[in-house]
């Protein structure tokens, strides 16, 4: 067989595999022993949403505390810079070989660590950039520190907090794919299983589904964010 003929043959069979994968019922609904796209999508949403909730629960209070502290800015920038250089795959594998083991837990822990920087930096900046005269006026009206935080600073920081949550959510969705390597399920499993069994119909089907959902999530959250901006006013985002 000439090399050209071989190449066309391989390409045709890949196309065939992809169409077979997309049109077969078991890829969407699963068959005994293997999860279908809908089950994996559910897992993916669950892992991302759980991680996002934990990240917000840790990140937003942490950032409000740091905003009160004089050296807070230094801590925030070092968190952001060091998190950017730590390999997320490495941390997941490290947690998986450690006492935690394989499954959802190492994935969620790693995901939370890497989703913290955008939420912390944006919340921090949002609170810090509230006009000092505004907070002074609030104190002058007899508000306690807690009231100033809850009724003045946090509401004014909402546009930036929303930006942080959007950046974190998009990043979580993408990183949750990698989590399939440590056996947490999710859409990434289409890629890991397809790659391990050399079934490229499943790999490319998974790649397309993951890419479309990731880009769709990014676009829809940006739309949602422009609604928040219209409601609470515009603010410059902090990239992290």
């Amino acid at each position, binding site marked *: 067989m000439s090399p050209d003929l071989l190449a066309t043959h391989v390409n045709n069979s890949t196309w065939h595999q992809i169409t077979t994968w997309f049109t077969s019922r078991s890829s969407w609904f699963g068959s005994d022993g293997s999860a279908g796209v809908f089950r994996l999508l559910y897992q993916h949403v669950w892992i991302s949403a759980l991680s996002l909730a934990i990240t917000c629960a840790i990140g937003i209070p942490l950032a409000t505390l740091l905003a009160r502290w004089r050296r807070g800015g230094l801590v925030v920038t070092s968190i952001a810079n060091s998190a950017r*250089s730590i*390999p997320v795959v490495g941390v997941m*594998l490290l947690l998986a070989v450690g006492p935690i083991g394989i499954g959802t837990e190492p994935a969620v822990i790693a995901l939370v660590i890497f989703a913290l920087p955008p939420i912390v930096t944006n919340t921090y900046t949002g609170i810090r950039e509230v006009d000092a005269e505004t907070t002074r006026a609030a104190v002058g009206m007899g508000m306690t520190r807690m009231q100033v935080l809850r009724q003045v600073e946090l509401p004014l920081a909402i546009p930036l907090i929303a930006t942080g949550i959007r950046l974190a959510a*998009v990043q979580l969705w*993408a990183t949750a*794919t990698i989590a399939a390597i440590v056996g947490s399920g999710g859409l*990434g499993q289409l890629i890991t299983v*397809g790659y391990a069994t050399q079934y490229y119909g499943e790999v490319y089907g998974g790649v397309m589904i*993951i890419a479309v959902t*990731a880009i769709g999530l990014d676009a829809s959250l940006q739309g949602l964010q422009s609604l928040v901006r219209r409601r609470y006013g515009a603010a410059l985002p902090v990239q992290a």
Partner: protein
Amino acid sequence: MRLPGDFTFHKQADPWLSWHYITANAHAILAATHAHVTLTLESVALGLLFAVPMAALARQRAWLRSLILNLCTAVYAIPSLAFVVAMVKIFELNRLTIVIPLASYSLVILVRNILTGLDEVSGEAVDAARGMGLSNLRIFLLVRLPMALPTIMAGLRLAVVSTIELVVIGGYVGQGGYGAKIFEAFSTRSHTELTTYILLTVLLALAADGLLLVAQRLLTPWRRGVTA
């Protein structure tokens, strides 16, 4: 002396960190570092090769600008595992499997920073150059690009640091660098190897960041003292 039936060596120490491991495996570490640095440089260089004309093109029309920026953001949203594995069937064990995805990811940072840098170039400097009779291409290469250099270098630093982190995923598809070692350590459950190469990735990123900061200072002497 260990005899064939003696399995005590299975319980040999596997600490989370060991200086002895580093000295005993210095050759392997150097080779992995070399591969990691090469892949990073190739990816960022390829990204830069595309980013400069893309940024120049984006400045021509408003719709081109938003099209190019949105395209870069969309590509960046694709998870690295998906992108890299998708390349395997096309390039197999060729390094392009990892270089193309990483170059594509670097575009979002590079194009945005080059654009910002070019936007900040003062119109007066360009007018002066035009008055001296420089052609548009020469103005771009001799006036606009050097004046945009501080912002471009800041983008380059970000791109290099995040690429160093991203190269690790290449280990999943048989590419070299620290990623290969990290995945190898995972399959052999070697704690020492795993932590060593994770720390090396972080150290390499920090070193590259520092080195590029020095280069930025040297390349733009007129900006010394200005905090960028």
